[in-house]
């Protein structure tokens, strides 16, 4: 069992006041707090190993390179990737999706081909495909969802046609918390020969992810959502794809030989990592991965389940509150609306009680179009949140309602 109190102590950002009230941070799906070990790893690089990586023969550059490459190994372990060479460091999930769209997919699609996404996607997994469709004449298809906020999987086989060249779906919805049955979806797509990318932005903070077991072709990780630094993330890709794909950015590191006439690209993953990367960010993300493994993903999953059931019951005691999305499998993320009060007003009011939630469309406008809503309030939990914080949230919501009466 997870000793919640001990872990809370390790997150300095949790221990502060907002408007004179103790902070209740329930905006974890937007970005998580970072544990001291992550902040220390960043500091340690800047103070003791501050150098550029890969290119230097001097000692600082060597040790910085080791730290960075060890971080890649930690991430490979977290995701159970076959090799750390299958991981490309990126700024976050958004860059990862754009990278795959503009390299792997762009080199394979022609006019009339189809790209399949789902109704649950974050804008990051919609707009890059719209741009690609504009550029290539490909067509965007969407797996529909139902009133519970679950995907209509019975339609998947029909949506996977001869023209489908790629499928990209979210593992866990940031807006509704829905956990999609991605292993089954990958299998269905593969049965039709369609490669699959999974958007893992909201999955890695909560679930044990095994890319080999999922058998996905690509998997995206957002560092800042899994307790790591901002501007960090990784893209996992099957080795055969990474080898075959054209490069993304041109620049230093990603080449082995440059003349003005021609250029020989470097081996994977360097081929996709042009320029000086976010070195401190990568190192901090490695520390976050090690931190999560030291807690144990099964412990995090268990704690999530406890918080989820407590929060769900507590929220339903708020008069006029309606939950948006109630998938059978979901993460501790709650989208809700309250009769007669706009989400932004609720957000502003409960902030004055120290409670940080997100309001609006959460970068998933199509989901809210489906429900005929402009947006929602979203309370999203991490394993370090407590039942007492749920109570503060509920109390604050009741005060907001009182104010509007």
């Amino acid at each position, binding site marked *: 069992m997870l000793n919640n109190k001990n872990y809370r102590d390790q997150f300095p950002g949790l221990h502060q006041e907002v408007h004179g009230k103790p902070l209740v941070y329930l905006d974890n799906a937007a970005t998580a707090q970072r544990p001291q070990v992550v902040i220390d790893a960043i500091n340690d690089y800047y103070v003791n190993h501050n150098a550029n990586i890969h290119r230097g023969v001097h000692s600082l550059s060597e040790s910085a390179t080791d730290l960075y490459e060890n971080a890649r190994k930690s991430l490979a372990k977290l995701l159970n990737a076959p090799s750390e060479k299958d991981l490309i460091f990126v700024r976050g999930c958004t860059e990862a999706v754009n990278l795959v769209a503009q390299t792997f997919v762009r080199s394979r699609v022609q006019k009339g081909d189809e790209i399949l996404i789902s109704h649950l996607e974050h804008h990051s997994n919609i707009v890059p495909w719209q741009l690609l469709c504009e550029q290539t004449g490909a067509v965007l298809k969407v797996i529909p969802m139902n009133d519970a906020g679950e995907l209509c999987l019975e339609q998947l086989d029909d949506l996977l046609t001869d023209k489908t060249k790629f499928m990209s779906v979210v593992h866990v919805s940031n807006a509704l918390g829905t956990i999609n049955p991605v292993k089954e979806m990958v299998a269905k797509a593969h049965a039709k020969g369609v490669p699959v990318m999974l958007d893992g932005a909201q999955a890695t903070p909560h679930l044990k992810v095994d890319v080999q077991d999922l058998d996905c072709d690509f998997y995206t990780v957002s560092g800042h959502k899994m307790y790591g630094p901002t501007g960090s993330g990784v893209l996992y890709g099957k080795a055969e794809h990474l080898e075959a794909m054209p490069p993304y950015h041109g620049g230093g590191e990603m080449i082995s030989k440059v003349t003005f006439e021609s250029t020989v690209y470097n081996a994977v993953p360097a081929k996709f990592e042009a320029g000086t990367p976010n070195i401190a960010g990568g190192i901090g993300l490695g520390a976050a991965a090690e931190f999560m493994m030291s807690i144990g993903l099964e412990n995090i999953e268990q704690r999530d389940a406890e918080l989820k059931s407590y929060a769900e019951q507590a929220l339903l005691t708020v008069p006029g509150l309606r939950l948006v999305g109630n998938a059978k499998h979901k993460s501790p993320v709650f989208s809700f609306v309250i009769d007669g009060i*706009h989400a932004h007003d609720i957000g*502003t009011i409960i902030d004055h009680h120290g409670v940080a939630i997100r309001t*609006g*469309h959460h970068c998933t406008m199509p989901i809210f179009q489906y429900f005929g809503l402009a947006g929602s309030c979203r309370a999203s939990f991490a394993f370090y949140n407590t039942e007492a914080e749920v109570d503060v949230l509920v109390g604050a919501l009741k005060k907001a309602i009182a104010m509007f009466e």
Partner: protein
Amino acid sequence: MTDLNKLYKQTILEHNRNPRNFGKPESWTHHAEGLNAICGDLVNVYLTIEEDVISSIAYDGESCAISMASASMMTEFIKNRTVKDALEKFELFCQLMAKGSDVKHIDDLAALNHLVTVKKFPSRIKSATLCWHAMAAAINGQATATTE
């Protein structure tokens, strides 16, 4: 009374309960939508301009109480003004609400000055100015105004 109470009780809720000029009119000469990109707020402003005078103005949309109340106040305030005057008041209102500025009151803005309390909630300033941007866009013939 806390700022929070002041903002909501005094200024906002009255207009929310009794919105002036709310709803899509049957006809209009100028229209624009105001979009708040970040949070998805939406306000439509409909104007009828006759010989450079805004003879009628209405709004609808889906938006927070601050935004809706601001739109309600704006329509009351702008109606029957000339286009030139309306645009000047738009500039003044933006000055009043500008993040970082210390302006607390602008004589020409009369009742609208109450909205200055919104500045205590910086992320909500755009809620208050959205309808004004839409109004100005409509006059200038633009279809959409966004407050990034």
